[in-house]
């Protein structure tokens, strides 16, 4: 009899412990607690498993013969699958740019579609080499998660959309309003923070998915809808009467989105950073995928010659070939081309460049010199 009780107790204890561990890892990666558990496991049990240390990632990528890029498979404009089964989008193009810089072939990428919940775990465990999935750079994520954020590719910010005839002009007008928002996102928290800061009463109407949020707003179940401005702009085109809706001139939060890599491999971090900077630099020099061969043949400008690998050993310093930047521009394009292809005037989004203009045009894109 006592034996049996021992068995039962033992099983319960083991189960309890395992469940606690599983429960944590299954939860949202926003929760710092859960994340810490994951990291402790990484260091204690699998530290040697993930490619870490200077140069290890590039070596692993080259040996494998292709890059593994963690992306979003369901964000319009940034990452989706087209009707031919190919990944497309702004973030996806940066994966191609990285492959072009490393291999001289933008197609050498394997895409891993990731959800918001699993993206950091996938990066930490070495399932992916780089995470380019509309991820906001925050202090907590940069430190606690064991990740490094490369140069921001897209400056987003949280906005609010209302119906024109509602007469709402500023944040204070939302007193007592019902606001549609997606659950479990920083969006929901930002909204709560901002409304508390301004002492405004409101009712959040939360939904699981973006489709539901905009569906509810379109059917009049809430007075306003909030999310990243880029999403508001793109989703406005899908409403019944897009022109009847207006995006307020308030920004609830800063959302700098960019590629993320594991801490501990500075060479890889540099490569990802400079691939982003190369797309900025291409736009600054006015070099596009169309004229890059002309420029390469005729240019006398020493800065451009260094950029395109005609002089200096810029690529080698990164561990790449010297025509790395030429390959990016030739095969994927400069920032303006990438932006316009996915979000620009010829797409349904027609998203104004705004902060995402080159510093020469009053935006925030500013690349350190390549020399």
């Amino acid at each position, binding site marked *: 009899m006592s034996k049996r009780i021992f*068995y039962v107790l033992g*099983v319960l204890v*083991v*189960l309890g412990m*395992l*469940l606690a561990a*599983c*429960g944590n*890892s*299954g939860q949202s990666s926003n929760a710092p607690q859960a994340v810490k558990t994951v990291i402790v*496991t*990484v260091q204690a*049990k*699998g530290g*040697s*498993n*993930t*490619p870490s240390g200077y140069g290890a990632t590039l070596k692993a990528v080259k040996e494998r013969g292709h890059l593994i890029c963690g992306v979003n*498979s*369901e*964000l*319009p*404009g940034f*990452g*989706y*699958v*087209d*009707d*031919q*089964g*190919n990944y497309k989008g702004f973030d996806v193009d940066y994966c191609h740019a990285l492959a072009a810089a490393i291999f001289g072939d933008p197609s050498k990428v*394997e*895409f*891993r*579609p*990731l*959800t918001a*919940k*699993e993206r950091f*775990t*996938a990066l930490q*465990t*070495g*399932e992916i080499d780089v995470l380019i999935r509309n991820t906001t750079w925050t202090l907590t994520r940069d430190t606690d998660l064991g990740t490094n954020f490369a140069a921001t590719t897209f400056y987003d910010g949280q906005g609010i959309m209302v119906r024109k005839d509602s007469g709402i002009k500023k944040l204070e007008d939302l007193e007592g309003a019902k606001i549609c928002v997606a659950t479990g996102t920083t969006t929901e928290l930002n909204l709560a923070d901002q409304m508390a800061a301004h002492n405004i009463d409101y009712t959040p109407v939360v939904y699981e998915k973006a*489709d539901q949020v*905009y*569906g509810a707003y379109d059917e009049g179940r809430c007075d306003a809808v909030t999310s990243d401005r880029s999403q508001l702009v*793109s*989703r406005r*085109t*899908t*409403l019944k009467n897009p022109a009847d809706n207006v995006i307020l001139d308030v920004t609830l939060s800063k959302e700098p989105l960019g590629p993320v890599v594991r801490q501990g491999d500075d060479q890889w971090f540099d490569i990802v950073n400079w691939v982003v900077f190369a797309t900025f630099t291409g736009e600054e020099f006015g070099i596009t995928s169309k004229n890059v061969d002309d420029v390469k043949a005729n240019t006398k400008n020493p800065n451009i010659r260094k950029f395109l690998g005609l002089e200096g050993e810029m690529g080698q310093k990164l561990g790449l070939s010297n025509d790395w930047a030429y390959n990016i521009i030739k095969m994927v394009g400069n920032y303006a081309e990438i932006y316009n292809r996915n979000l620009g005037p010829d*797409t*349904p*989004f027609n998203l104004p460049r705004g902060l995402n203009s080159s510093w020469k045009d009053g935006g925030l894109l500013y690349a350190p010199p390549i020399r």
Partner: protein
Amino acid sequence: MMNREPEQYTTGEVLAPPTERYTVLGWLKKNLFSTWYYTLLTLVTIYILYIVLKPTLIWAFTQAQWQVVVVNLRLFMVGQYPADQVFRIWIALHLLALTAGLAWAIWLPRSRRTGAFLLLIPLALAALPFISSFSRINWILFAVFALAGWGLGTWKPQAMRRPLLALLLAYFPILILLILGVQPILKIVKTNLWGGLLLTMLLAVVGIAVSFPLGILLALGRKSELPIVKFFSIIYIEFIRGVPLVTVLFMAELMLPLFLPPQIVIDNVIRAMAGIILFEAAYMAENVRGGLQAIPTGQYEAAWALGLNGFQTTFFIILPQALRNVIPVLVNQFISLFKDTTLVAIVGLLDLLGIASAVLAQPEFLGKQREVYVFIALIYWVFSYAMSYASRRLEVALGVGER
């Protein structure tokens, strides 16, 4: 006289019991309007159906823009599987048609229903207006292969039994080889390109086919008198049943690489399959155990009295009866497994649901979630219903509930 038989037994015809036959109106009167409250219920139901169905049908036929489904049909069916390799999936389907045709002729020679399924459904699919001519030809070929199998089976039913069994056993390995590829002949298609209905079906079929025997073993283990076997079966079953499938998948996909040495890279899809199999086996085990417990002790005693050993008792006497008893529960489990495969979407596999979300993000089809979700719901319904229908036929064939 001793052996004189009553006359009516020798010459009298045995009459069939009288069947009820109605005209349409008569049927209506008996079933829908027999009393005043039946009439009232019927009218209320018709009214509710009207207010629900009218807007649905109006939406489906006039407002819905099915273009999103038509354009992305290949994506929904096979995901990112390369277009120039899709013929391999068709070959697998034709082989299936041939096998099914043979089985129809040999095992169910009089079943017109099976024939109708095998011939009319592919022909109906071939007649759909929006599919490509390549698919159209292939659906017609599917029907032709089914008919060929039936012809072969009817022509030489005895000689064809062995090939049929061989086909059934070899089908699954052949299927995997066809889809994955064999290096020199067929290009390898990596599993990260498998998707859509193809991936959903593979996950479900592998899950069912492997977790079923595993579950039987676990159930037998739990009933075993060997303490260690019993103890581990119980621990396994109770542990897995205490964890949600999402967690098992998450562990398999993202935590497993932490515990493995870096040289070992286990494929994504295999990991998801392993997760599903391990999870479902525990539930399967409990279902089978229910069936085992329903077998009276007399059956064991009778088997021993006949001199059968433990293995023979279990596999020839007990299990056939136990499994027959739990068919509805097992099919229930299979259907729920089929739908549970959607959970792999959260670990980065683009199954039918995952690919639907990806399609919804295409700029030209933003906001078409109703069309897409209605379409995949229809697919899930068709397959789930087919499974439950097949199980009902199986129960009738095995005479469940008629003992």
